[in-house]
């Protein structure tokens, strides 16, 4: 039987032989072996556990239902899915000519300026929404999610009102930027 000569058996055999040959230090050997086994276990455990290196501490979480329940699948809805995605892209794409035009023309007429501002406002709103969805997960921070979502809605409404005031009482956003820039 070749496996008897394999290191797995060989090492304890050699160890036992050595202990028998030197009975005087045998009692001193025992804890040394145990210590070695323990330190090996500790060293090996370093490969099995993840060290804690938090940049940000993970947010609190709760387990709803059992631990082995599948993740609930949200209802498929095109207005929260592909339509939303396409709308975001169309809006972002339409901002390209809208932002290039004032550089080419020097300024924008009031209508185009209002269109540009409205597009930037909606683009910003969608961008902030994405940030909230990414970093304030509803499952972990349900209250903070509600507060930030509605706070964003309120802020967008206020800023929209402010934009309206600016567009009606001031010189328009592109013209204002030009005047400050060349001041």
């Amino acid at each position: 039987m070749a496996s008897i000569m394999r290191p797995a058996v060989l090492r304890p055999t050699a160890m036992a032989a050595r202990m028998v040959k030197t009975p005087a230090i045998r009692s001193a050997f025992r804890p040394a072996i145990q210590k070695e086994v323990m330190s090996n276990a500790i060293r090996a455990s370093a490969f099995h556990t993840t060290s804690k290196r938090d940049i940000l501490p993970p947010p609190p979480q709760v387990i709803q239902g059992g631990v082995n329940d599948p993740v609930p699948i949200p209802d498929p809805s095109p207005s929260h899915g592909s339509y939303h995605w396409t709308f975001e892209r169309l809006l972002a794409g339409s901002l390209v000519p809208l932002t290039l035009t004032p550089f080419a023309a020097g300024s924008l007429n009031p209508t185009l300026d209002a269109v540009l501002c409205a597009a930037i406002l909606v683009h910003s709103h969608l961008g902030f929404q994405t940030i909230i969805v990414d970093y304030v997960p509803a499952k972990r921070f349900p209250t903070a999610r509600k507060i930030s979502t509605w706070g964003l809605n309120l802020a967008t409404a206020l800023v929209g009102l402010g934009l309206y005031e600016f567009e009606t009482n001031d010189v328009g956003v592109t013209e204002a930027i030009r005047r400050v820039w060349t001041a």
Partner: protein
Amino acid sequence: MIAQRVGVSAARRIVAGNPSGFFTQHLPKLAASRLSTTQIRPVGTSKITAEDAHSLLAQQRLNRPVAPHLTAYRYDQTWFGASIWNRFTGGALSGAFYAYFAVYLVSPLLGWHVESASLAASFAALPAVAKGGIKFLVAWPFAFHCVNGVRHLSYDLAFGFAKKQIVKWGWAVWGTSLVLGLYAGFAL
């Protein structure tokens, strides 16, 4: 089953029970008689109920580490990746946009003057270096977000999505936006 370990425990049992047997003739007899049939495993086990096991598992799941960790990736991919800087620049620009127009809305109530004429007047009073610096701080994020936004739109159309192209155009976006930002800040 590990092929190397086949028969090892059986051999051990034979060795321990029958030190003078056939299998042990090549082994030192004294050593063989000292062989233990059990292995040392420094772990403790205890019997717990199914509910306790479930709550223990739930407790452990709550302590799961966050993965993948940011430091697992190369720094130039995570820290200078154009994707996260698109969010930084967009967030900063939109944040400034929101702050200014919200302040503009409430400024009559507070008696503040943030209309374009007074802004231009106070901006003109600044030294040239401050003017250029402030303009750069606005122009660079704007240029970056514009150029990188077009890049992301091309991703959405499945262009430029090979790894080499991502890296190449990432650095191109940094270079272009810095040049445009410096030009708009100090030359316009």
